């Protein structure tokens, strides 16, 4: 797919002497697009993300980022062009919120006043007032606040690509809904190429421009949410049914 920001070309991946996680997997993500990948735990979703920022290399096939094979990228340069948000967030506990956000700019040798200005801008963007949060420590934050800092940190040097691994998985439903809205608001302003991984079909529908369904290391469906929702594929239906069951349970509880 020409003009794709990220492309998986016939990618297979397995850790040494372990079963295959990805099997001849192909997928293209366009610039500025949000792709939501759904699948059950262990389906290979996180592996996909790590192939993009070269935490892993494919056994066969190629992962192309900005028209270049990840094998040909200097891993450090590549990673600094890609924001990465994990479920566990991974904030550095020995740094304040502001220092956490400023890590990559400092790695890139930005001047301190530029780092400070950017940090303020980003904390503002993710809805954490600088005055209140800049000097706070990660362990003083709630889960939702921590996740917002994680997003701000990932966006710090304005990378064109954002990878999000179950970013809202550990949050309560209310906070999660709130952050979904925040995410859409931020994305409408920054227009990143985003791959977001989740096991929750509802979240995928809420966030993705397209939704991809992974099972046993292959892509069984990938299209606009409405099309995926109407899919007749059994593997897709099972995931959809799980969401519906949830909703039914909620209605009965009412």
């Amino acid at each position, binding site marked *: 797919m020409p003009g794709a920001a990220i492309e998986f070309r016939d990618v297979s991946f397995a850790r040494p002497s372990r079963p295959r996680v990805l099997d001849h997997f192909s997928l293209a993500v366009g610039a500025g697009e949000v792709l939501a990948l759904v699948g059950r735990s262990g389906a290979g979703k996180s592996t996909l993300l790590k192939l993009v920022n070269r935490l892993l290399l494919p056994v066969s096939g190629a992962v192309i980022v900005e028209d270049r094979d990840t094998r040909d990228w200097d891993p450090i340069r*590549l990673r600094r062009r890609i924001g990465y948000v994990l479920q566990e*967030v991974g904030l*550095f506990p020995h740094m304040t919120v502001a220092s956490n956000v400023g890590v990559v700019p400092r790695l890139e040798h930005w001047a301190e006043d530029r780092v400070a200005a950017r940090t303020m801008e980003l904390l503002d963007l993710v809805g954490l007032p600088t005055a209140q949060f800049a000097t706070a420590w990660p362990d003083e934050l709630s889960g939702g606040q921590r996740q917002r800092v994680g997003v701000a940190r990932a966006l710090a040097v304005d990378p064109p690509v954002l990878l999000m691994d179950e970013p809202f998985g550990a949050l309560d439903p209310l906070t999660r809904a709130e952050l979904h809205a925040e995410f859409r608001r931020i994305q409408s302003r920054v227009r990143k190429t985003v791959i977001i991984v989740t096991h929750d079909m509802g979240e995928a529908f809420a966030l993705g421009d397209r939704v991809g369904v992974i099972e046993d290391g292959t892509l069984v469906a990938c299209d606009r949410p409405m099309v995926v929702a109407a899919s007749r594929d059994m593997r897709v239906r099972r995931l959809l049914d799980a969401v519906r069951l949830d909703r039914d349970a909620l209605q009965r509880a009412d």
Partner: protein
Amino acid sequence: MWSVVRFWSTHRHELVTLLAQHLLLVAASTLVAVAIGVPIGIFAARRPRLAAPLIAIANVVQTIPSLAMFGFLLPVPLAGGVGARAAVVVLILYGLLPIVRTTIAGLRGIDRAIREAGVAMGMTMRELLRQVELPLAMPSIVAGVRVAAVAGVGSATIAAAIGAGGLGEYLYRGLSMVDTTVILAGAIPAALLWLERQLSARRRAPVRRAAFAGAAALAGILLASSAVAAWRSGADVVVGSKNFTEQFVLGELLAQAIEREGLSVDRRLNLGGTLICDRALLMGDIDVYVEYTGTALTAIFHRPIEKDSSRVYDEVRELYARTGRTLLPPLGFNNTFAILVRGTDARSLGLRTIGDAARESPRWRAGFGYEFVGRPDGYPGLAEAYGLRFPAPPRVMDLTLSYRALASGQVDLIAGDTTAGLIKGLDLLQLEDDRHYFPPYDAAAVARAEALLRYPQLRRALERLSGRISAADIAAGFLARVPSGAPENVSAVPRRR
């Protein structure tokens, strides 16, 4: 207790010096242990297969008793020998284990997500280590450094055994003279020092400040270690001695005689047994000490026992000459082994000779120093010559402790030194060697030929002493009056003659 306080006040300059030496030993060794241990820990934490064997090795090192460690290191060039350098090497080896272990534990304990976040953000291995891993592992590493320093305060007391100074000097000196005051004078500050380290360890610095505290500690240790380097003396001649009272006195005699010839002297008294002194002399750690001809013949050169004293002297002189050392003329007295029993026993049983004691031996217990049990001219030959038959193998103990053990009835026969002042002090009786088992033990200075060549005054000083210390002097027991504490206190002795 008051006597200890009095001792401190009269010896306060010495106390301060020993305390400073003690702290410097610990500080210098801890610094180097950090400099070696942390990189090893970092290396091992990244290679789990290496970590297990590394920890195993460090554990084994840790279990080697420190005295044995000094023994292993004696013949090792650069790291071994006697003096502060060897002591620091041993303390470093002991400090490594806790530091390596806590470095590994600290790095391994870091949340996987945090490390992954760092890598994914595009940190190089170096940036990750400096900005994330080391700061997070710092509390654990600092804890290891603290353990190493606390243990070092204790282990450093042993350093006095090889002449490195420190508070242990009081312990050894006190043990040698069976003087509880002196032992306490060293043990109390050592214990307080240990306690202080422990207590300050309790006040835990918060995570974020640990890095700063670690850096400050490192800077302090650096300063201290440069002071250690300065403290190593640049004296012309180094005088050594073994670890009992007579040897302190003889060492001090040599030192003062040499000083009167205008040379500066570094005193490394109380170095331990014969073999330690011999190795130290061979390696040039010391330049001169007093040896006994019979001891040199049998224990150092492993030659058969010889009875004629001038033949022994000539043979030993020849053997020394072949190894680059010069035996100077005898000082004038023979310090043979004294087979000792309690005065009360001797009187009630009518004991006069070792042969008399052999009669009683089936009902007795014997206690000997480490050397006497192992030496070719020691216990096995003696037992054979006199038919000694103790029901149990002899108790092996520190030579200087054995006098007290005899006096208090824990053993019934020991092998001491003819010249030990304690013989009179504790009412002990020396049995006569009527079968002439022991070879002659004429005391004579032995010096490195190289030092004699470099300083002609050294030879002059040593030759001036020859023949001037008689058995009568020793027998008169002036050594028994050596006041507790410093060997320097016998300064009047040579001038009198």
